[in-house]
């Protein structure tokens, strides 16, 4: 890789947006080229300085004023959208969907999965709303988080240190999913929280990953080693996938 090419992608390198191969090539070039390394150092300095600038947070009065106005928004407005489906149409559609699902033998699986995903979203969102109460072990060290679960759960959820990949371990708590105890382990990347739910699987067979998005959230679920895993976040699907791949990679 020559200097001209490095200059073209240096910003993407700084921003952690390059694919692994290019990223490695660039790192190699930077190690041996003082000129490009200086340029990167200047970029980093500029970034650090911008991050010292005051962030214009929303004034409390604005927040109150918005909440007040939301109370006056006619909830029926949302239902008047042209794309909205009337309740009776929804009922008919649900009926058709149900009979189709039944015909395909999906009746047992589909509704429960949807239900579980809803619960995963609800528990994740609840913890975002009250982080101080719900993250019971606020710790950046997996050697603190992992033993903390001992004695509280009848399984040992895996806890990994992924900080070198940008995922900081925030902590863990005991939560509940579908009526059973679950470990909720919270990681953070670029101000986004990822909650990983781990619970005992009813089925000992491993199940492959299923990635979905639901109302703006990314979800990945899988089953392995008698444990059920569900990762959720508002990061992009690609980023959550990277997180799950790292989590499932064999210990170095």
């Amino acid at each position, binding site marked *: 890789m020559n200097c001209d090419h490095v200059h073209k992608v240096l910003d993407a390198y700084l921003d952690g947006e390059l694919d692994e191969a290019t990223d490695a090539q660039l790192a190699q070039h930077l190690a041996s080229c003082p000129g490009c390394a200086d340029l990167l150092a200047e970029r980093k300095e500029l970034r650090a*300085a911008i991050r010292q*600038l005051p962030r214009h947070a929303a004034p409390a009065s604005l927040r109150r004023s*918005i909440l007040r*106005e939301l109370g006056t*928004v006619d909830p*029926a407005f*949302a239902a008047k959208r042209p794309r909205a489906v009337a309740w009776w149409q929804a009922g008919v559609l649900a009926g058709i969907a149900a009979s189709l699902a039944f015909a395909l033998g999906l009746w047992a699986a589909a509704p429960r999965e949807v239900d579980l995903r809803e619960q995963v979203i609800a528990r994740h969102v609840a913890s*975002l709303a009250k982080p101080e109460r719900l993250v019971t072990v606020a710790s950046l060290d997996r050697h603190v988080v992992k033993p903390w679960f001992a004695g509280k759960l009848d399984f040992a959820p895996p806890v990994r240190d992924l900080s070198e990949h940008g995922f900081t371990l925030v902590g863990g708590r005991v939560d509940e999913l579908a009526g059973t105890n679950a470990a909720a382990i919270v990681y953070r990347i*670029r101000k986004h929280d990822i909650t990983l739910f781990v619970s005992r699987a009813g089925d000992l067979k491993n199940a492959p990953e299923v990635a979905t998005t639901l109302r703006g959230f990314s979800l990945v679920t899988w089953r392995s080693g008698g444990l059920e895993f569900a990762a959720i976040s508002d990061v992009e699907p690609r980023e959550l996938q990277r997180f799950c791949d790292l989590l499932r990679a064999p210990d170095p």
Partner: protein
Amino acid sequence: MDDPSRRERFETTILVHLDAAHNLARWVLRDDAAAEDVVQDASVRAFRFFDDMLGPTPKAWFMAIVRRACLDWLGRARRRGIEESYDDAKHGVAVLDAAGAAESPESLAIRSADIRQLHACLEALPREFREVLILREMEELSYREISAVVGIPIGTVMSRLARGRDQLAQRMRAPGTRKKS
């Protein structure tokens, strides 16, 4: 279809990003009162269309609505005769003078005394560079999110960030902002 949990969901997925929204609006509009008005309107609009949420993340979706509202406001202001162009004589230079100019000319070497100068330089940057820098450096959005907020391809996000950073570094080094060696 009155759904009390809808509002709760809106608060926990969208309004958690209110600080980010206000920060973007303030940097794009460079006006406190306008930023508050625009964010208020954009929040209510987002609430109405919450069920149609699209885009890579809820934050990006909300920021896109806020940015759109900012551009609408700037368009109206321009029609009223208020220029969007930044008045160096009024803002920038005064702040630069106040920030002093005693830095070493060899490098950018941005220390706390230079923060005010940087603030002025960033405010004076053309809007298309200013907004991507705020989204990336302060709000830590990914290229994909910025692409969705600003409505430009990911490659353009990268080149805009590069040019924005170049221009900002140049302004920080510009004659008159520091002593000549």
